[in-house]
């Protein structure tokens, strides 16, 4: 039979063994996590994030310069329209074309569609919005005779693309984030009818029910921003 003293000894031994194993485990983990190479894995990561921040800042600055230049060009053209009789018709044609391609702001009756990730704590592939959802939605809206569309205030044009890098969505290579607000100018009844059609956007509607994806529509007076950049044509020529 164990005496009190012996029991104490056994308990102490067990305690010491636990502490010993714990310290041993810590040493082992420490050795395992220390990179065996000279390279510090944190440095490239930090360089990448710094480069990302610098490039994003540069992009914003260039966009602002482009915006200012476009405004100055518009003003110059308006002046030419007044001062040069020969150019008046040309400037008027240019103004109509600018309006057609999305280089002017549009205001009017329309619909605002909000597409957003589900508020589920643990997201899954079906509970978040993908670039493909936005592409499908935009296609359906054009089918409903939309006159102008913007996604998170990025105006869509003939050259626009909606893409993704893993979970980051880009409109014309500009990063946009959840929630996604799509402003559409056009016939409210027609747009609403198409959006409510059970056959349209069936995948999104299924995920609204099963995963809590957010898909709301509202008839409103809308302002659709003008396209912030300019166009470049490098290979096509008029015949």
């Amino acid at each position, binding site marked *: 039979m164990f005496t009190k003293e012996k029991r104490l000894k056994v308990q102490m031994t067990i305690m010491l063994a636990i502490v010993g194993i714990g310290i041993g485990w810590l040493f082992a983990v420490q050795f395992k996590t220390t990179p065996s190479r000279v390279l510090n894995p944190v440095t490239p990561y930090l360089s990448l994030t710094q480069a990302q921040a610098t490039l994003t800042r540069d992009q914003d600055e260039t966009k602002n310069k482009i915006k200012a230049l476009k405004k100055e060009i518009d003003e110059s053209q308006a002046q030419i329209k007044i001062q040069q009789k020969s150019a008046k018709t040309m400037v008027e044609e240019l103004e109509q074309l600018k309006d057609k391609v999305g280089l002017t702001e549009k205001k009017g009756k329309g619909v605002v569609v909000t597409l957003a990730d589900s508020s589920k704590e643990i997201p899954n592939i079906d509970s978040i919005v993908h670039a493909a959802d936005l592409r499908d939605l935009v296609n359906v809206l054009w089918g409903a005779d939309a006159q102008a569309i913007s996604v998170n205030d990025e105006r869509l044009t003939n050259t626009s693309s909606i893409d993704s890098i893993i979970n980051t969505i880009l409109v014309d290579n500009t990063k946009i984030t959840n929630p996604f607000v799509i402003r559409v100018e056009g016939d409210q009844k027609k747009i609403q009818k198409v959006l409510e059609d059970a056959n349209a956007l069936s995948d999104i509607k299924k995920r609204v029910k099963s995963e809590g994806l957010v898909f709301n529509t509202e008839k409103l007076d809308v302002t659709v921003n003008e396209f912030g950049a300019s166009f470049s*044509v490098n290979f096509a020529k008029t015949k």
Partner: protein
Amino acid sequence: MILGYAIVSQLKIESKINEFIDPKRSSVIALEVSELIKTNQQLLTEQRDLQEQKNKLASTDNDSEESIAKDIEKLKIISGLTEVVGPGVQIEPSEFLQTVQLIDLINALRNIGADAISIDDQRVVMNTFLDEENFPKPVIKVIGDSDVLENALTRKGGIIEQIGGNAKVTTQTELVLPAVK
């Protein structure tokens, strides 16, 4: 207590290091950086072109009219109001393309920098509704950098593979695309 503190600290450090060196996270940022570099280059070119345009408008009457005429031509091409000609590629899918495949293909062509696109000799513009029923076996013509387009479409992991289709892609020195009807 000391042992507990040490364990918690160790776990925290480990998770922080893992967060930093997580290849998935780093590669996402690397891709974003690469996209930013590409976009910033495009934006700088745009800025230079606009500056040139502004200077021309401010110079002689002839120069300003030339600049306006150039702008008109460019926007006519963009809007699809005029027939256009140029090099590019012709894509002939070997099987039926579903609506989502068409949407993804046209989106990718725009992202690569296509100047003009047509499907079955119908010009694709901003508000073209893409629907499989309208284009049961589409022939897609694209004006742009033919080498870049062909490579982006046909390489392993390229657009055709991404949309899960098969297609014959041929480069063309001159394609003629109609104006919007």
